């Protein structure tokens, strides 16, 4: 707008959205307050106990086990999905359109349905997955039913669901690479690998950072998939920090303790997302 005059109009236009924002921010503040109290279900009285929930958490072995499981989940997901997604995108870039139609399917459906579909196929007794693997000479696997494999099984379902997301974003980015750059490089005698490494990767880096951000944060915060398959079990083999927060509050009724776990997870996500977004905007402005 050319007028330099201060106007109240844009704030008025934003007002409904800001009211909803406050409505959402309020529970967050309530949660922060609960994490500083000894609030337990059925005892209406809450006492302020400062940071002792946090201290208790950092001293308990369960917290560190959960953190280890969470990090294992995030690293497992990222290490497979991102290289695989880039690979698929490179294959799709040169192939017929028809292969792109099925790609968004796992992303469109409710996450709980992909969890249940795979649970159906991973059934150790009658599941089709063990049956298909038996042709390759692989002995029956317990999948979600056994502590040693449960986390890997959930990571596997996550890979099935979200590799298409990585592939689609990377594909869109690859298709924007200016053709004259790759052609010039080829005339100068660069091979496929060099073109990919020296031209494609730097060009798609901002998109890769965004994909990394979304996949990392969503894996830290994965709840639906774990709830619908194992609910943190067997034992606590899949008890990530997010699921532990749910477990502490809803199952064990320790509200203060559960909120402490969730706040710690929120801090991790907040630091990670601001750091990556800063990297991303730096990369874009270059």
């Amino acid at each position, binding site marked *: *707008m050319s007028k330099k005059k*201060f*106007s109240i*109009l*844009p*704030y008025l*236009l*934003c007002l*409904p*959205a800001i*009211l*909803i*924002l406050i*409505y*959402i921010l*309020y*529970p*967050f503040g*309530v949660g922060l307050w*609960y994490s500083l109290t000894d609030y337990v279900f059925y005892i209406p009285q809450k006492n302020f106990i400062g940071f002792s929930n946090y201290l208790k958490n950092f001293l308990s072995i369960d917290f560190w086990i959960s953190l280890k499981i969470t990090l294992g989940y995030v690293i497992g997901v990222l290490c497979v999905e991102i290289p695989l997604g880039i690979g*698929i995108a490179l*294959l*799709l870039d040169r*192939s017929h359109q028809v292969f792109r139609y*099925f*790609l*968004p*399917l796992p992303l*469109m*459906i*409710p*996450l*709980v*349905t*992909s969890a*249940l*579909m*795979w649970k*159906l*196929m991973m059934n150790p*007794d*009658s599941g*089709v997955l063990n*049956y298909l693997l038996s042709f390759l000479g692989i002995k029956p696997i317990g999948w979600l039913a056994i502590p040693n494999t449960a986390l890997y099984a959930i990571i596997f379902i996550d890979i*099935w669901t979200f590799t298409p997301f990585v592939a689609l974003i990377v594909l869109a980015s690859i298709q924007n690479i200016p053709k004259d750059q790759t052609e010039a490089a*080829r005339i100068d005698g660069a091979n496929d690998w060099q073109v990919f490494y020296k031209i494609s990767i730097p060009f798609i880096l901002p998109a890769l950072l965004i994909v990394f951000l979304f996949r990392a*944060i969503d894996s*830290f*915060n994965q*709840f*639906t998939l774990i709830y*619908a398959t194992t609910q943190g079990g067997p034992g606590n083999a899949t008890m990530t920090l*997010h699921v532990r*927060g749910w477990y502490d509050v809803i199952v064990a009724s320790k509200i203060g303790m559960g*909120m402490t776990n*969730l706040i710690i*997870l*929120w801090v991790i*996500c*907040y630091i990670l997302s601001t750091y990556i977004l800063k990297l991303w905007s730096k990369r874009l402005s270059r």
Partner: protein
Amino acid sequence: MREKPIQKTRRIILLVLFTFFIFFPFYWTFLMSIKNPIDVTNYPPKFIFQPTVDNYLWTLGLVKQQEVTAGIRGQPLPPEFVRAFVNSLMICGGTIAVSLSAGVFAAYALSRFTFPGKENIAFTFLSFRFAPPLVIIIPLYFVYQRLKLYDTFAGLILGYQLITLPLTIWLLRIAFEEIPKEIDEAATIDGCAWWQKFLRIDLPLSRSGLVSVIVLSFIFSWNEFTFPLIVGGRITKPVPISMLDFVTYSQVLWGPMAAAILLGIIPNVLSVTFILRFLVKGLTFGAVKE
């Protein structure tokens, strides 16, 4: 790009394998949904069998199936899937209505005006995308208990704004910013006030953006699981939660669950097909002479 035939074959084989990997769970769920209870748990799994539509009929509440309802600790499971479907439609409709009516103005303000704190407001909306959902939802549960909003449609619709409002504001802001500046300036010269420009020019010109926002909001709110799990109950139960009803204490009703899974993703498939048809580029084409 020259490619040896052997490379091309390898590429096609890899892609076919990956497509098979993506598609197989749907195929298998479909097979499960047309199997009799005896065939469902058979090992080795059957690929050829006598198909049946009983699972669909039972899930839709059209028929009582004795073999399935028996053995659930004496309680016949009422097929609540149809009600959940209606609930889901109501929640999605309300959610989209609220987030559009609040979001369209905020997006317009962010795209057309400069004002102090603008980028801060914009970023705050986005930052919710990166918070663990339960850090909001669990305290919301206690707030809702106090406000008597627990297990109500109004409570869920307001809660779902956490997911759809940031999406709406960001996508509509981009859609408004893509409208050529020349059109806006021409309208100002002709003496239009901001609301005239908004109603007569910007809103009609951004309709493909609006449609994609509506479809995406629909899919996101249709798929939402964590919110209704914590702050919803029996009355407001939507489709994703109702799928868990098929896992009962003594058995998992695989056949009806498979039918419910396939019925529950029909709206997603339909809306995505719709968006692909509608999204014709170039709605503003020809409005500005270059």
